[in-house]
């Protein structure tokens, strides 16, 4: 027991702390799924449909089975007992196709799993895939969602000839009145093309069945280990407590691993059948064809306004390309677009219709931003189109329509309550950084010289920290546990399952500050259902705002107990806790956290009504979402001869609430912006009219490279969220949401004097060049 008190003044929250997870990653010693080796492990490879639509007339696996090393081939007939791939979203009247883990008598998209080959060697398994003979009768297919809605289009699912999976309507205010009284109405069809998430690590599963224990362990590259456990246990008919899911090191997800995939249950099935561990690693080609895609919108917008630029109301008809099946959240994604369609603006009249359309393509689902980039792209394009129509400056029209700082919490026409905001602050800051007025003068000068220079503004708002449980499909809380060892070392376990975001560091920052200890004395664990309390996962920019808050409250509970033990040890009724010590306020005597921890476990004496040990778990249910916002400005120049767009400057001012670690926040913004910029300029999943995936490899799908992206000038404003005690909002998707409209607005601005009002993404050189030809702007 010490009598002097060394006060720790250093705190971690708010500091640029380098990451605790990095030493293993930079030395090549981290363990991803494909790094797992087990005695007797077999390898699986999957036979996939080359057709977008076909009847399966027969499958002959004889030659594959005769190959030395092949131990089994399973087809749809073998897996009838396995439950369907689950859809967690429910909408009124939703048509849900039966989604078996292997195709039965029909295939619905290129890449549809038809059979699985299991062998002792990964090369043998892959060879034998080519020896499985599937007799297909090709059928007409449809890949374009608008084409799928036309009368006489091929039916994706014969039982629903109109290809409509659902319709959904949401409105607020009185849109008819708003439009009737409007002085101007602008209309535009805007697409958000299909994108391929392209996590650098493809999916992969290792399944290990222990028959003696009736226990299955599934190592999967997933964002949601606990939800996966519940759902795969149901699919396989296992008791949930006999299934352990481990998300080891996960090499990126971006929503594509926020899912329950056929292959995850299939590997469990295979391991149980062959009685050996089995590994399946998705090839990049499979990843492009059979892992979910994102976006896939055709949106018809109408915006009503007064001549002074005041927006009165918005109408939207949203056509969502769903693909052939519903994956975990497929039908729910466009409903998020509708929720966020008002963006950062005050107007209160909204009328939206969604048509969810089946196509012979891989399903769409959550991809970084999940519905909000589409909404933001739409509203931010429409605001620019309105500004162009009314000859009002793009910054001014936004400022005029912003929700004002004194209007928070702000009730939107779509039923949300925006928590806090000061929307002009990041815009003003971004304008100052680019020196907006001078920039506009330079643009005029450039035009005189015949150069095509554009300035694009996007002021986005987004919905994060998913979310209050009643508003989510699977519960929106998160778990956080704090466990202090007898030696005083601290382990934080989070139900959020980070996969690159850096919560091993940010949560350690929170815990170290709360306990007043060194950050190296905190270890953060996650991603294993055997060691972490049930959790929801990492997606929707929720990990810190919900998971971090759960950890925060677990720490508060623990601090109370630490104080109780401290008071007992100090024999004082008046103690306080700071800097890792419990201090008697009268005598100044103190005990350290490790002394308290030791006493709590040794339990020679216990405070009244107090159990031994220092462990606390919190399941935190958020009272609301959080609503980050920001302003991005892109300056672009177009090469008249080639149509190539070069981004001269990119300024991002993001407000994600309180910042725990500015270094990591910048990293999130950079990566997010580049994914949004990838959509704006380069990326598009292309299916041809027969449903063949044309962009089936990295050779054909343009993931941005280092030379293709600009320097991002990132800064922040900080408006704390009142929703959680940390004041954080979330930043994982902000960059992606803000970027695509900033870029497209900039390019359209560069061409606006030629009469160009809108361009759909991606703004490839070809598309821009053709536009120049059509508008007489060629070199």
């Amino acid at each position, binding site marked *: 027991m010490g009598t002097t008190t060394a006060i720790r003044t250093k705190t971690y929250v708010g500091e640029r702390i380098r990451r605790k997870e*990095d030493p293993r990653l*930079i030395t*090549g010693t981290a363990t991803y799924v494909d790094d797992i*080796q087990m005695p007797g492990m077999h390898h699986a490879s999957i036979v996939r449909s080359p057709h977008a639509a076909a009847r399966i007339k027969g499958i002959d696996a004889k030659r594959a089975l005769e190959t030395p090393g092949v131990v089994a081939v399973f087809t749809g007939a073998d897996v009838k007992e396995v439950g369907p791939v689950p859809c967690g979203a429910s909408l009124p009247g939703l048509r849900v196709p039966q989604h078996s883990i292997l195709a039965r008598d029909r295939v619905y998209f290129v890449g549809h799993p038809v059979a699985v080959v299991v062998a002792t060697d*990964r090369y043998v398994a892959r060879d034998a895939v080519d020896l499985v003979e599937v007799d297909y009768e090709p059928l007409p297919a449809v890949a374009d969602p608008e084409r799928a809605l036309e009368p006489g289009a091929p039916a994706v699912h014969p039982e629903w000839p109109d290809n409509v999976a659902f319709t959904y309507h949401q409105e607020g205010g009185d849109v008819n009145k708003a439009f009737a009284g409007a002085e101007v109405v602008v209309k535009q069809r805007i697409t958000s093309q299909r994108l391929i998430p392209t996590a650098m690590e493809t999916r992969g599963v290792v399944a290990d069945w222990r028959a003696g224990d009736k226990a299955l362990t599934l190592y999967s590259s997933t964002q949601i280990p606990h939800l996966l456990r519940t759902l795969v246990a149901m699919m396989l008919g296992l008791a949930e407590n006999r299934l352990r899911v481990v998300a080891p090191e996960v090499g990126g997800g971006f929503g594509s691993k926020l899912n329950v995939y056929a292959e995850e249950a299939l590997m469990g099935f295979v391991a149980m059948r062959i009685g050996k561990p089995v590994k399946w690693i998705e090839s990049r080609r499979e990843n492009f064809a059979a892992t979910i895609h994102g976006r896939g919108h055709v949106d018809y917008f109408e915006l009503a306004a007064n001549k002074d630029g005041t927006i009165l109301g918005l109408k939207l008809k949203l056509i969502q390309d769903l693909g052939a099946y519903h994956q975990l959240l497929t039908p729910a994604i466009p409903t998020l677009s509708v929720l966020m369609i008002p963006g950062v603006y005050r107007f209160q009249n909204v009328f939206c219709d969604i048509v969810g359309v089946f196509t012979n393509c891989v399903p769409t689902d959550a991809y970084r931003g999940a519905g909000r980039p589409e909404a933001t792209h739409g509203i931010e394009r429409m605001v620019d189109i309105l500004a162009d129509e009314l000859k009002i400056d793009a910054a001014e029209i936004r400022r005029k329509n912003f929700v004002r700082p004194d209007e928070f919490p702000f009730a939107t026409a779509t039923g949300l309550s925006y928590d806090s905001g000061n929307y002009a602050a990041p815009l003003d800051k971004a304008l100052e950084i680019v020196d907006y007025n001078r920039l506009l003068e330079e643009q005029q000068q450039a035009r005189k010289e015949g150069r095509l220079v554009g300035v694009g503004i996007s002021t986005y708002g987004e919905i994060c920290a998913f979310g209050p449980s009643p508003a989510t499909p699977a519960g929106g809380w998160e778990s956080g546990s704090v466990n202090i060892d007898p030696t005083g070392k601290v382990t934080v376990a989070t139900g959020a399952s980070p*996969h690159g975001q850096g919560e091993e560091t940010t949560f350690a920052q929170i815990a170290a500050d709360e306990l007043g200890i060194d950050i190296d004395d905190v270890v953060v664990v996650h991603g294993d259902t055997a060691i972490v309390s049930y959790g929801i996962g990492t997606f929707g920019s929720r990990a810190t705002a919900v998971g971090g808050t759960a950890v925060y409250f677990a720490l508060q509970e623990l601090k109370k107990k630490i104080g109780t033990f401290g008071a007992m040890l100090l024999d004082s009724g008046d103690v306080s806790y700071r800097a890792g010590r419990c201090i008697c306020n009268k005598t100044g005597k103190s005990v350290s956290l490790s002394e308290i921890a030791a006493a709590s476990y040794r339990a020679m004496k216990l405070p009244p009504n107090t159990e031994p040990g220092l462990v606390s778990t919190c399941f935190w249910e958020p009272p609301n979402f959080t609503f980050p916002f920001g302003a991005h400005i892109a300056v672009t120049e177009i090469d008249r001869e080639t149509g190539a767009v070069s981004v001269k400057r990119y300024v991002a001012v993001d407000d994600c609430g309180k910042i725990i670690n500015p270094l990591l926040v*910048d990293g999130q913004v950079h*990566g997010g912006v*580049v994914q949004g910029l990838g959509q704006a300029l380069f990326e598009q999943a292309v299916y041809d009219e027969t449903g063949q995936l044309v962009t089936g*490899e990295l050779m054909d799908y343009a993931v941005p490279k280092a030379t293709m992206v600009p320097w991002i000038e990132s800064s922040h404003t900080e408006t704390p969220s009142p929703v959680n005690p940390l004041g954080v909002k979330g930043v994982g998707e902000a960059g992606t949401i803000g970027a695509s409209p900033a870029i497209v607005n900039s390019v359209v601005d560069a061409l606006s004097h030629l009469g160009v009002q809108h361009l759909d993404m991606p703004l490839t050189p070809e598309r821009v060049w053709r536009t120049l030809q059509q508008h007489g702007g060629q070199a």
Partner: protein
Amino acid sequence: MKRKITLKINGKPRSDEVEPRLLLIHYLRDVLGLTGPHIGCETSLCGACTVSLDGKAVKSCALLAVQADGREVLTIEGLAANGQLHPVQQAFWDEHGLQCGFCTPGMIMASRQLLERNPNPTEAEIRHGIDGNLCRCTGYQHIVNAVKAAAAKAGA
């Protein structure tokens, strides 16, 4: 018919019988247990499998193990010496040049070669030097910073 290969891996001699078609990346990962280099595409487009072969950064998914016969391979596991991180590794850590970490071993190997060839690269030269390596997380900016920082340290 298996073939015998003899090579140096991370400074140590090694000899194995391998199938002629075995890719170098699978030899490193599955036979030798060097799982630092990763497989992101198997088509030499992503660079996650980048290792050094006789001092040159190569994509080990586009080479056969037998092509490495008689040569010297350095993987990310062999980069740190005497418990000291290589300056590029250190810089990636200091500058937050990674998020999910999957591209990182390859990215570090490519950056290392870039700095060997050009100890004081400009931003454009850095971007060009890592153009064969895809990263989906960082937007490359902190990687550029890391390479700059490693260069500055080496020059200091």
